[in-house]
């Protein structure tokens, strides 16, 4: 096998059935950050991320994780 991706890798990479939460980990915390033009500055993206935590990660003293701990 060479350094190039084989067909199976390519299919897996193209698959859209990835879990949203795994995707958001990467799209909101990874990826090159460039300042866009009219849009969200880096600081704004961080704000959005924090807002999103309310949906994605509501773990705090008032809203403990719904887990059998």
């Amino acid at each position: 096998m060479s350094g190039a991706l084989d067909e199976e890798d390519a299919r897996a990479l193209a698959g859209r059935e990835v879990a949203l939460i795994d995707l958001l980990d990467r799209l909101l915390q990874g990826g090159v950050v460039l300042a866009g033009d009219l849009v969200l500055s880096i600081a704004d993206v961080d704000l959005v991320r924090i807002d999103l935590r309310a949906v994605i990660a509501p773990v705090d003293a008032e809203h403990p994780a719904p887990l059998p701990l």
Partner: protein
Amino acid sequence: MTESAQRQHMVYAYAVLRPTPEAARAVAVLRGVADEQVGLVETGDLAAAVGPVPAEEFEEGALKAGLEELPRLEALARGHHGVVAGLAPLGAVLPLRLATVYRDEDRVRQVLQERRDQFLPLLERLAGHVEWGVKVYTDPTDPTDPTDPTDPTGSLASDAAVPAGATGGAMGGEEALSPGRAYLAARRRRRRGAEEAWQTAARTAARIAEEAGCLAVGRVAHQPQRGELAQMPGGGTAGGGKPGGENIANDAYLVSADRAEEFRSRVLAAAEGQPGVRVEVTGPWAPYSFALPPEPAARPEPV
């Protein structure tokens, strides 16, 4: 295009890559976040995969509102990922952060030129590599897990099985163990069990990190996944992972493409036979978690 027609569109940028004929062929079949035809903007030895998107949906206010609504965020994220994933087989692609939007293509060219010295080494580093996600969970459904409430030999059942009156003299009541004491004892046992499960999982996570480190050229620790989205069916894996369990490690590894399968099987093997622990490997991904230029502001937060 007239001035007013240009104003109605903005340019959504997905990824930075090399302007090769293969890249041109790859974008030609891709549609983006607004179902638009994706194309390349080139300048010298760099290109960006971009698409024209309606300004009314992607100007600041609308975009911000969209990012705060989960269904719209999901559509945007999947649209963005569709393009990046379609380009990833080219072997060297630098995914951009979600929602990077420009006024026009000239601005994209300008940014490519300004950041050329950062993009070229990054592209070189990521070429021929894929990203794997490795998530370690405590597993409350494991039959050996002492916290398992369905285990008939488990702690809860034995509490309930104490015959009434066996210690009646001491208790002076109808029940062997008062409901309060039984509850506390069970709770203590459950908590101890959960702690043990967590420690086992933490040890396994460390072993896996060690094993994975042998094959990977980079590692980024993401925040463990919590909350509603992590609990949703399909929130765990593409196959709709088993529910429950606490995510204690959520790491991304950068691995040479020709060792990708070896990485996957070795990580899964390292997790095999570990009681009370569940491991998920996701990917291969385009190298999202490693597309970070060497500037302090863009570094992943230490975990």
